[in-house]
């Protein structure tokens, strides 16, 4: 694909300053997404996945600073944009499906009204047109359009998540970030919604970023997978490559921590130790204190990128091959 990627993130570094020092939540992250592509970001909680999402929308709390890097949206760097300009990018160009569908709808307004509100912030359309558009969005996500005039508490969990997806689609953005879109739902509803999202994405030729700690979800929906550990992407590549021949020891241990339904019975792998404190991350490779393959060099030098085709990992002792 020679056309410009929808989103290119280069060396993005974001810290939260707290009393004890700087929390290095996102550290030198680089990736890009083509039109129509789905990127999955997977990692333990606290690895910086959601921080990346919030940084992309520039919705960070006051104590967060973007120290380095670029966020190129269709070639335009949005990091230096003023708050007023940034407002035009939000939802119109990048929208988001929030983690907690339960809480991301305002309880005192009708759901339809909250979608119309987003439309009105970006499009100059009459109210009737907006309502019509919401009806069509409800159709797309398989919700009864009669629910438009209902309040959030009158929706079930799955319905609410669908409404949130409809809301994210409202302005036909180039990129949708889905932060744990189905974590709070039961497995059957989760499966339905993931399938629907996948088909809507293909239909509208949109780009997506899925964020989840659930490898199974990521495997199902994404074309490209990035594995995050302690604020860094440690492995990035095509979904099949990453899951079938992981390079990084962390990816391997994540995989072995999940049971396989079809594979033979085995002891599930557990990872000893805890994710590092991002106030004072370990020198060298941040994974080395927990890594079974760690050598001396891991503890004092940044690991190099090991490439295998379009698939790379940052590791001194790459696995597989």
């Amino acid at each position, binding site marked *: 694909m020679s056309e410009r990627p929808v989103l290119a993130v280069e060396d993005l570094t974001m810290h939260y300053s707290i009393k004890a020092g700087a929390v290095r939540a996102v550290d030198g992250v680089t990736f890009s997404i083509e039109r129509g592509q789905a990127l999955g970001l997977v990692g333990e909680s606290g690895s910086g996945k959601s921080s990346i999402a919030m940084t992309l929308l520039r919705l960070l709390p006051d104590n967060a600073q973007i120290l380095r890097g670029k966020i190129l949206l269709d070639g335009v760097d949005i990091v230096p944009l003023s708050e007023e300009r940034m407002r035009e990018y939000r939802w119109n160009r990048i*929208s988001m499906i929030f983690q*907690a569908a339960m809480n991301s709808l305002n309880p*005192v307004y009708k759901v339809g009204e909250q979608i119309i*509100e*987003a439309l009105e*912030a970006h499009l100059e359309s009459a109210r009737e047109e907006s309502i019509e558009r919401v009806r069509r969005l409800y159709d797309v996500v398989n919700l009864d359009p009669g629910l438009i005039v209902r309040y959030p508490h009158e929706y079930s969990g799955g319905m609410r998540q669908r409404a949130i997806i409809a809301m994210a689609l409202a302005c036909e953005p180039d990129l949708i970030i889905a932060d744990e879109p189905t974590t709070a739902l039961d497995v059957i509803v989760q499966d339905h919604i993931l399938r629907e999202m996948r088909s809507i994405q293909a239909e509208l030729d949109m780009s997506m970023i899925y964020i989840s700690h659930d490898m199974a979800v990521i495997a199902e929906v994404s074309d490209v997978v990035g594995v995050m550990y302690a604020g860094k992407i440690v492995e990035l590549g095509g979904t099949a490559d990453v899951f079938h021949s992981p390079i990084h020891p962390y990816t391997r241990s994540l995989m072995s921590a999940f049971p396989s339904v079809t594979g033979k019975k085995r002891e599930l792998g557990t990872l000893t130790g805890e994710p590092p404190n991002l106030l004072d991350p370990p020198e060298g490779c941040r994974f080395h204190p927990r890594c079974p393959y760690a050598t001396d060099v891991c503890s004092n030098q940044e690991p190099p990128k090991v490439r295998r085709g379009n698939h790379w990992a940052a590791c001194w002792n790459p696995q597989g091959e």
Partner: protein
Amino acid sequence: MARYLIKRTLQILLTLFIFLSIVFFLVNAQPGDISHVYSLNPDLPPETRAKLQDLFGVNEPLWKQYLVYVKNTLTGNFGVSFSLYPRTVADVIGERLPRTLVLFLTATVLSFYLGFALGKIVAWRRGGWVEYGSTIGSVTLYTVFTPWFALMMIWLFAFRAGWLPIGKFLDPVEWREAPTSANAVFNQMIITMIVLSVAIFAVFLFTTRKRVAGARLIQAGSIVLTAAVVAGVWIASGVAHLAWDIVEHMILPVGTLTLISFGGAMLLTRNSMLETMREDYVTAARAKGLPEKQVRDRHVARNALLPVVTSFVFSLAFAVDGGIIIESVFSWPGMGQTLISAATTEDLPLAVGAFVFVGIFVLVAHLAADVLYVYLDPRIRY
């Protein structure tokens, strides 16, 4: 909803009955009885004393007295005031209650409106001198010793500057040749106030609900227009200067009360805002690219309003028993003064009657709050 209202009304009647009983037995638990006010007079011959006791019914067993009391109260008979004899308790309260209500309702509404508006802004712009200044200011006002503060206000604005009258409800000199009574003028003023606020509220509701273009202009215009009409009607009535005299007497107590209770409303709004700002739907509203003002007013402030409304209803209770301190300092002839003078002159029927009215008002205010909540929070359904 209708079923709920009926249920609540029955509940209120039950609560009121319990309240009445407690008031009655508390009063009777006091040493002596109400006839002592007369019967302790040494000039009174014993036969007259016995006759008086028969007349008051205090020789009857307590349960009989209680039944008579309940029956009388239910038929709206609150008895006769001793200290203001021969006026009935209902008549005295009918005169004093509106005075207290107007004074305290105005101050309560004003302080919550200002407190909410300022608390909203302070919470939104955290840090900086605006937050520190207004927080320190409102904590000071919230905790200040009320009589001292009220006296300072009188000293400053009435005594030193001489802009406002020092106290009381009206200036007798102005009223000497008055064609009507103060109560008549005051009742007309109350009606005017109600009509005015209903009209303005209707315009605001209509313009914001229907998203009328130029809503601000229409709202401002309607305020000016209704104010002009009201002023015109009053001037034509010929008692405008008398009404103005009452207004002048109200300014200082209302201002003092507003300042005292405004701090609490502001701090409450601020805390409620800060809590609501952490909600996911606020982040979502921002992510949608809504303007900051819309996020603040439509999403944060709208939800932060709920606890403030609760607190507003509780402070309405004070609107009836009416801050005895404030009424005493400003010599305002309202319920607070009535209660205290009834207590000191052992005018027990009046004291009991005043308590009953306070009870009724508080219970009705809570019912109104419950109904209001349905409109403010769609999750609440009865």
